């Protein structure tokens, strides 16, 4: 990648990296915060200016890194004229807004947050305009919706702010969904998701039968974002945002994203009848309707919002015309609208900031009190009206010129007349902005005495106003960028000349009519306003709210019907569905012939089977007596472990028997706090239903097991048997699989076990602090307790057993690699030995003698296992490759030392820690429940003479 490509990457990344700064720098003060927001923006702008000359010469700068090539997704950017225009606007205005917001936001607003959101938005917006990959562009598109949600709702305490943000997100977000569909279709037609390649295939795309669906979906995306009729309603409600946000998002950037998309895809989508009629008509309606509503809005920002809607309609209409001259006009107007509209928003913000109101009816006469603001606002508003020698005039003339010879459905008058009407209304509301706010008599009932703001607040709009005048007087200044952008839009080599005077053309006459008519309308504003107030008209917000309420009600109905809170019902549905699927799969294909014979059944095994079946049936019948059921479960578990031992699985037998012990202990402890019996509440019908389901499930699983037990399959197990000793250095193949072949699985599993331990600990921690903790403390357990809770015999026996158990555990651990045993079993055995101490002498006594925290043990276990695995990297082999050697120490036999043993040590520690943490957590509940805490090892100690000598003892 060359330097230019690298710069492009930097430009795209800088806002996101910079977004981390404001949140930190706010601690250093508001100035530092604003400065550090400006730095990444300014840096990106400088880089952009370095790239600009090449782009203006007509070069296209590209940069690409593959991301998910399988999906056609790559991080690829390109910068052409159109991208340059938008990127310069985003970064340039971003810089001005940063300055403006520093002085606009009050001390109570979290400024760090604001700037972080702003930079996030800036990065997302920048991503849209320079993305080469349309999937990447979609990601940035959604990011603008999300970050603008945060910005619009920045004042969280205002309900309008929250509602406006939600509405904007709902409308632009659903449009974004449509856009995703449209873009995917487009990519399918073109056979590539790279924009530069798609743009080459205009003819093929327009000829495709999928053209119309793609067009409509993409247009929905663009129209919702750019607030086109009938999706225009969200933009005025988004005005609840702080003014810097409105000035940035709603004049210069976000709402232009839709227009940008139309311009970007112009070469492939424009030029068809469908495009012309949909886009032009939507634009035209939006332009006139927006301007009309703007005229009657009393809120300064609402007026500007609807004027923005109107101007976006104008841009959409121009792009809809499908001619190159119209595209040039559109590009030029994008630039001009940015300059005057951002300045106007900031002016409105200054007026609001100084007078504490944005209501035009309460304003007027400000020209004496705020001369600087007056000058800025007037110039910008006159430009919006399209008065000569200001830039708004130039692009509006070009628009009228194009409109004057556009034929719509056979009518040569429809478009010119409506365009003139739009221009006329535009003049009217622009003049109203000036006259009703700044002219008229000075009032003395402003909510706050106004005067011009500090330099920092008016510097940004003033700079934009200078641009308005400069471009208006010397349009050739903008020729370079407009040429580059328009050429990029149309794909043609254009050389437009931007001039003030075109001679006496139809457009000039239309302009004259517009200005004069606008002045007349303003003069008639008072009676017209009364008429407007009385006229019935649909309220978009109410319709939207009703729509949302209807959708919510629908989803509530569906949820309550399907998800009614009855878990037993879900489980029944789940089991039935699983059985049905299994039956369906089985019905589809028959069984092959059996390949294995039956093994003989010795009598002992038959007795074991009978025990298991009887125990199982007894659990089902007696399950309401919970203690009995638990005993029966223990019988089942022990029978299964005996079965494992008989069927050549000694490791499983060892594990099952120790897990069984721990599980029963755990359930016993839990049962201590739960009701001891289950009430009979199922009806007979329900029991029958559950019985049928259970028998069907059991029969299915049993039949399946029987079917495969009689058939052979090819397995990979021979590999493990062959390589266990050679490669893993152990003769116990099961253990070698656990710590070596599939060590990564085991590593994951001990982490899960550790997490389970932590979850239980955290759960209990939260529990004892809550209402349950209070309930526990008030609970009376006195009747449940045995008088001799820590009997002498048990204490003595467990003490004696402890060292033996540890030796056994160590033995099982050490021999695990070659004989049945290993970390899992050893961990469980030691855990049981420790648990016996807890049970014999009580948790308080034992806890006081514990040296290592169980959390630490889990942590060390995972670290040791992880480090052992990582150690393999040192010898250049993959994670968890084990190495081993044989060591000969004189008194002991030659023995083997494998790295796998350290891994197994990690397993051992994690299992021990997790099991102990789980049971220890239960004991915390017990102690909270007011059980007496014992300081002594046993309740009645015969060695303690004092008790004996007490009179009456």
């Amino acid at each position, binding site marked *: 990648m060359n330097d230019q490509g690298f710069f492009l990457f930097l430009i795209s990344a800088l806002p996101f990296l910079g977004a981390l700064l404001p949140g930190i720098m706010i601690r250093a003060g508001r100035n530092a915060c604003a400065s550090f927001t400006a730095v990444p923006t300014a840096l990106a702008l400088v880089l952009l200016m370095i790239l600009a000359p090449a782009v203006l010469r007509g070069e296209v700068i590209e940069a690409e890194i593959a991301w998910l090539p399988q999906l056609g997704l790559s991080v690829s950017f390109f910068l052409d004229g159109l991208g340059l225009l938008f990127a310069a606007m985003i970064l340039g205005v971003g810089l001005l807004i940063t300055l403006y917001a520093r002085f606009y936001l009050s001390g109570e607003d979290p400024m760090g947050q604001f700037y972080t959101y702003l930079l996030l938005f800036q990065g997302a917006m920048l991503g849209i305009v320079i993305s080469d990959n349309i999937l990447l562009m979609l990601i940035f598109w959604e990011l603008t919706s999300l970050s603008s949600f945060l910005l619009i709702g920045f004042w969280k305490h205002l309900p309008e702010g929250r509602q406006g943000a939600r509405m904007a997100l709902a409308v632009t977000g659903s449009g974004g969904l449509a856009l995703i569909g449209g873009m995917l279709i487009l990519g399918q037609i073109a056979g590539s998701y790279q924009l530069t390649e798609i743009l080459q295939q205009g003819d093929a795309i327009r000829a495709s039968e999928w053209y119309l669906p793609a067009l409509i979906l993409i247009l929905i995306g663009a129209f919702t974002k750019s607030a086109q009729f009938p999706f225009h309603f969200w933009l005025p409600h988004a005005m609840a945002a702080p003014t810097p946000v409105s000035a940035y998002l709603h004049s210069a950037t976000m709402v232009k994203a839709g227009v940008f998309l139309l311009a970007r895809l112009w070469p492939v989508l424009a030029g068809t009848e469908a495009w012309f009629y949909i886009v032009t008509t939507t634009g035209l309606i939006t332009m006139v309707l927006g301007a009309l509503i703007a005229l009657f809005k009393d809120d300064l920002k609402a007026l500007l919002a609807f004027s923005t809607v109107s101007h976006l309609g104008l841009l959409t209409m121009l792009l809809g015309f499908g001619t190159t001259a119209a595209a040039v006009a559109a590009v030029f107007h994008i630039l001009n609208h940015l300059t005057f509209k951002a300045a106007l928003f900031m002016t409105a913000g200054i007026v609001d900031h100084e007078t504490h109101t944005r209501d035009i009816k309460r304003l007027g006469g400000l020209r004496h009190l705020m001369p600087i603001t007056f000058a800025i606002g007037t110039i910008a508003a006159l430009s919006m009206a399209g008065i000569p020698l200001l830039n708004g005039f130039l692009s509006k003339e070009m628009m009228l010129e194009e409109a004057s010879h556009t034929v719509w459905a056979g009518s040569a008058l429809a478009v010119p007349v409506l365009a003139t009407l739009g221009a006329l209304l535009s003049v009217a509301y622009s003049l109203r902005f000036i006259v009703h706010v700044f002219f008229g008599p000075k009032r003395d009932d402003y909510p706050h005495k106004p005067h011009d703001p500090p330099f920092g607040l008016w510097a940004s709009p003033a700079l934009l106003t200078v641009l308005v005048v400069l471009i208006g007087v010397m349009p050739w200044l903008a020729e370079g960028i407009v040429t580059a952008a328009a050429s990029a839009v149309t794909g043609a080599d254009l050389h437009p000349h931007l001039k003030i005077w075109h001679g006496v053309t139809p457009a000039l006459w239309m302009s004259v009519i517009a200005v004069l008519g606008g002045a007349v309308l303003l003069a008639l504003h008072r009676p017209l306003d009364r008429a407007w107030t009385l006229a019935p008209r649909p309220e978009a917000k109410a319709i939207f709210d009703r729509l949302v309420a209807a959708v919510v009600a629908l989803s509530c109905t569906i949820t*309550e019907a399907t998800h*009614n809170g009855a*878990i037993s019902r879900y489980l029944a549905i789940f089991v039935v569905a699983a059985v049905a699927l299994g039956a369906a799969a089985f019905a589809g294909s028959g069984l092959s012939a059996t390949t294995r014979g039956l*093994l003989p*059944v010795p009598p002992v*095994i038959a007795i074991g089977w009978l025990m*298991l*079946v009887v125990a*199982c049936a007894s659990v*089902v019948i007696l*399950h309401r007596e919970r203690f009995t059921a638990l005993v029966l*479960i223990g019988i*089942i578990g022990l029978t*299964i472990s005996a*079965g494992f031992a008989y*069927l*050549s*699985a000694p*490791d*499983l037998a060892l594990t099952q028997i120790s*897990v069984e012990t721990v*599980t029963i202990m*755990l359930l016993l402890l*839990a049962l201590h*706090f*739960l009701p001891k019996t289950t009430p009979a509440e199922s009806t007979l019908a329900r029991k029958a239903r*559950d*019985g049928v*389901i259970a*028998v069907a*499930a*059991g029969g299915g*699983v*049993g039949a399946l*097991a*029987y079917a*495969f037990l009689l058939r052979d399959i090819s*397995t*990979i*197990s021979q590999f*493990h*048997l062959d390589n266990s000793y050679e490669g893993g250095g152990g*003769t116990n*193949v*099961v253990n070698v*699989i*656990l710590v070596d072949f599939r060590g990564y*699985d085991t590593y994951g*599993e001990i982490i899960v*076990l550790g997490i*389970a331990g932590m*979850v*239980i600990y955290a*759960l*209990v921690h939260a*529990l004892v602090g*809550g209402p349950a903790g209070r309930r526990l403390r008030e609970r009376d357990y006195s009747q449940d307790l045995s008088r001799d809770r820590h009997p002498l015999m048990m204490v003595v026996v467990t003490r004696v057993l402890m060292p033996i158990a540890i030796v056994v555990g160590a033995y099982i651990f050490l021999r695990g690699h070659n004989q049945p045993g290993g970390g*899992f079993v050893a961990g469980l055995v030691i855990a049981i030995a420790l648990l016996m101490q807890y049970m014999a002498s009580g948790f308080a006594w034992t806890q006081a003698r514990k040296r290592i925290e169980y959390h630490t043990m889990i942590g060390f276990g995972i670290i040791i296992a992880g480090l052992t695995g990582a150690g393999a990297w040192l010898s250049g082999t993959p994670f968890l490759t084990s190495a081993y050697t044989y060591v000969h120490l004189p008194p002991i036999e030659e023995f083997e030392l494998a790295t796998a043993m350290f891994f197994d040590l990690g397993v051992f520690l994690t299992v021990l820690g*997790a099991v102990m943490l789980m049971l220890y957590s*239960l004991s915390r509940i017990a102690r909270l429940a007011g059980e007496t805490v014992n300081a002594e090892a046993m309740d009645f100690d015969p060695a303690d003479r004092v008790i004996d000598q007490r009179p009456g003892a």
Partner: protein
Amino acid sequence: MEILIASAIGVLTAGGVYLLLRLRTFPVILGLALLSYAVNVFLFASGRLAIDQSPILARYGEGSYTDPLPQALVLTAIVISFGMTAVLVMIGLAAYLEADSDRIDIDPVESRDDDQRGGAA
């Protein structure tokens, strides 16, 4: 032998499913325990049954061994199902202590009342 193992798996599953469909936490947990037994034995049996063929390699000479892979997988499954049971038990216990009821179903009307109370608070 195969018949016994297959039928045992079936009985464990049927018992587990029946208890799973009960209305209180404790029987449901027992049901899950029975189901874990069934699943573990089922997975183990997928290596086919063998007697006196433990997958412990003989030092000298050739031997015949049963399939070790399902055993290794089931070994971790046993330990993990203990972890799962423990978490479930704690959740059931916590729910009982918080709500003073060990029912697993939420009465729809009751839950809506709770929502309203939460909203008003």
